[in-house]
């Protein structure tokens, strides 16, 4: 989530002298004009160009620059767009960051470049070093440009902590179906002439519903609160599902491919889950369970008990919430689950050679038959996954493929668009499925099949 507020209401003085509302830019411009002596440099930290700057990026960068200025001499300029500039003796940029006896022997530009290395597809280098006076004109132009532009104001405290409980309380009070989405995962390239085979329908919470609450937009940076909210939602889903069996609604476990529930280990070993299993057995319906990597890491004993219970009940267990970074830094294969769900990121297509090796090793440790690529929202994700040996996919691109199949097969589809069909399939609340004259088809284009195989 972007933690920057939009262009603020401009102060009345904007139409007067820029010096009144842009002291950093003005001071930088003046200091650059005065800097004619050799042996000085400008270190520019380009935080304003980052696609998703976090408050700690600026805070830590500022602290490192201040520390350097204090130790070696120099001046730090904080600009309105988020950029930071250190004017300092060139030699100080070659000195180790930390004081002895411990700490990094790295120089400040290298450390900042490493800390702020771009993620995803951001093309901008995080730091520049402009030696003076050679780069004086460049620095002057940069400072003038910063002074001229309106800029954005970074928030140093992105999470309005007092608002979070309000958002949660409001979200928890909403009707359950309004808080949920249902997304189908598929097997691609299966035998028997079926190219796309629905595997399961995962029930997730709808982030939009949460973020629509006052303060809800601040949820993302607080993973603990998100986990708390998810746990409350799990309780409600577990309590509701037995009553949904054979009611042919979006949450009916008996009406299509197995439903997959996101649960914490403690929920799997709790009484509500046992009640659900009993009800499912009575009606011959199947489910799967997804436990996030963070829940498994937080409660290893509970996870082992949950895994054992699920094995006994022949319920497939999926580890989800595995980011590309988590795939490289952790060992999800050690959890011995039936499947591991990797979250797609465009970064996967642009890994360094070392990262590619680590990713390949991690994927091989899990095995292609146990991998699911989630968040496959674009064709690029599908192509990357297929090249890596994935056969199981989930994401908006997959949703569109399924919707296209439904439109082709549905005799009521004349007035429907691809987008409408896709959104209706995601909806759990009846209102979200309004307009569909063949709601049973929203559960999947192919005939129902057994649990994920």
């Amino acid at each position, binding site marked *: 989530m972007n933690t920057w507020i939009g262009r603020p209401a401009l102060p009345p003085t904007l139409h007067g002298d820029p010096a009144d509302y842009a002291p950093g830019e003005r001071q930088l411009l003046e200091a650059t004009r005065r800097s004619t002596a050799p042996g000085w440099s400008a270190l520019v930290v380009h935080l304003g160009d980052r696609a998703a700057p*976090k408050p*700690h*990026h600026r*805070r*830590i960068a500022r*602290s*490192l620059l201040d520390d350097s200025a204090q130790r070696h001499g120099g001046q730090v300029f904080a600009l309105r767009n988020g950029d930071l500039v250190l004017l300092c003796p060139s030699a100080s940029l070659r000195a180790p*960051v*930390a*004081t002895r*006896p*411990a*700490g*990094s022997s*790295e120089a400040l530009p290298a*450390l900042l470049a*490493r*800390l702020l290395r771009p*993620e995803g597809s951001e093309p901008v280098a995080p730091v520049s070093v402009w030696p003076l006076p050679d780069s004086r004109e460049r620095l002057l132009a940069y400072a003038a440009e910063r002074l001229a532009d309106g800029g954005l104001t970074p928030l*140093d405290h992105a999470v309005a*902590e*007092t608002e*979070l*409980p309000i958002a*949660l*309380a409001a979200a928890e009070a909403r009707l359950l179906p309004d808080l949920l989405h249902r997304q189908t995962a598929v097997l691609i390239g299966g035998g028997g002439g079926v190219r796309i085979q629905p595997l399961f329908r995962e029930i997730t919470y709808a982030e939009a519903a949460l973020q629509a609450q006052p303060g809800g937009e601040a949820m993302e940076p*607080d*993973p*603990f*609160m998100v*986990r*708390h909210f998810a*746990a409350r939602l799990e309780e409600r889903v577990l309590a509701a599902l037995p009553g949904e069996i054979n009611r042919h609604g979006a949450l009916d476990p008996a009406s299509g491919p197995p439903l997959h529930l996101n649960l914490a280990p403690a929920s799997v*070993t709790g009484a509500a889950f046992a009640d659900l299993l009993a009800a499912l057995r009575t009606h011959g319906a199947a489910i799967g369970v997804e436990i996030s*990597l*963070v829940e*498994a*890491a*937080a*409660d*290893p*004993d*509970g996870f*082992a*008990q949950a895994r*054992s*219970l699920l094995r006994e009940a022949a319920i497939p267990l999926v580890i989800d919430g595995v*980011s590309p*970074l*988590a795939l*490289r*830094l*952790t*060992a*999800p294969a*050690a*959890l011995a689950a039936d499947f591991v769900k990797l979250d797609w990121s465009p970064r996967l297509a642009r890994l360094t050679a070392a990262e590619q090796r680590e990713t390949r090793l991690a994927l091989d440790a899990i095995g292609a038959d146990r991998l699911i690529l989630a968040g496959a929202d674009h064709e690029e994700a599908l192509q990357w996954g297929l090249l890596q040996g994935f056969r199981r996919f989930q994401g908006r691109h997959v949703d569109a493929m399924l919707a296209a199949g439904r439109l082709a097969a549905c005799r009521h589809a004349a007035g429907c668009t691809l987008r409408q069909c896709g959104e209706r399939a995601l909806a759990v609340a009846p209102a979200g499925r309004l307009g569909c004259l063949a709601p049973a088809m929203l559960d999947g284009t192919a005939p129902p099949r057994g649990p994920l195989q």
Partner: protein
Amino acid sequence: MSTAIARRELAPDLARGGSPEEARRLATLIRDCEASGIARHVLLLRLSELPDGRTRPHHFTLAREALLPLTGAARAQLFELPNQDLVVVWRGETAALATSLATIEHLFSDDPAFGTDPMGIAAVLALPDDAELLLQAVEESLRPRQPPPPPRSPGLPLDPATLQALERAIAQADMSRFARREPVCRPWPEGFRLAWERRYLSDTELFDTILPERAPRADPWLFRRLTRTLDRRMLALLSASEELRGVPPFSIDLNIGNLIGPEFLRFDANLPAALRGRVVINLRAEDIVADLATFCFARDFAAARGYRLLLEDMTAEQIALLPPEKLGLDLVQLRYTPIIATAALPASLAPETVILSRADTAGAIAWGRAQGIALFQGRAAQPSSRGAR
């Protein structure tokens, strides 16, 4: 000298407990080992500490059957103490120990009454080193049983509104009276020496004081969130002038968010030069996994400022999931359990990076030292001098 009871028949009334004579025979054996230096292994199963509702005859039968493989070990003797605790003493290494422990764990691991530590009732000890601890257990078994205290209400879990109020209260309360220190020690020929102190706020005492009717840990994620506020208060305490003058090296528990927060920057700015490079930051596994990108940022920043990062309270299973070398961490705190003592240190761990926690017995220390571990935390690892090395 006591009588050997290899593969002794199960008593018909298992919940009744053994006789005082049997306890005295065990005490004699312990003292003999202590006097003569004869080495024996011991498994103490504290059935007297079984949770309420888990003290039916079949629980005792199953627990006792779990010990049967051990009674086949060399010179094995089984003692049943008056308070129903079971003790097996034997000579030499035996694979049966792992079998028995695995059976005990299997018996209780699915039982929520045991909480997160189903093996808390089992202790693997060594004679003569643990003679004092074992004699204490015998003595306790001979005392008349006190009526159990009335069960304390488990309390309601936190909810977001209470959490918010609690965060405000903690932000304003005097926290210095909840500040505690716990030594991390290095074995030395003459005893243990302090390596560093863990400095922390006792959340148990704090919550008992300001929110006795609630169970803050019942909602693990709201509790994690609450620890952020505690972190900030701890950092504020440590940033006070003179607080760190002349103190030994120390460690603090921090959430990742606080390691890159303004309070930490103030703490870092006030850190005396003598402590730079000698402060350890304790991190939790779930906090790291919750946001790996931010963890990597915080790790690199902390390393650049000379802090060492420790992965706190890990089991062997967690280490398999979160290999410390992949995460780029300096130290791992490994939780000692009787189960872990039946195996070698996980191969992915370098012994010099490990702190063995819950080292409450000489057996734990012996196992750790045999694995090459040089840092210990627990009741059996108390410093004989305050000087940190």
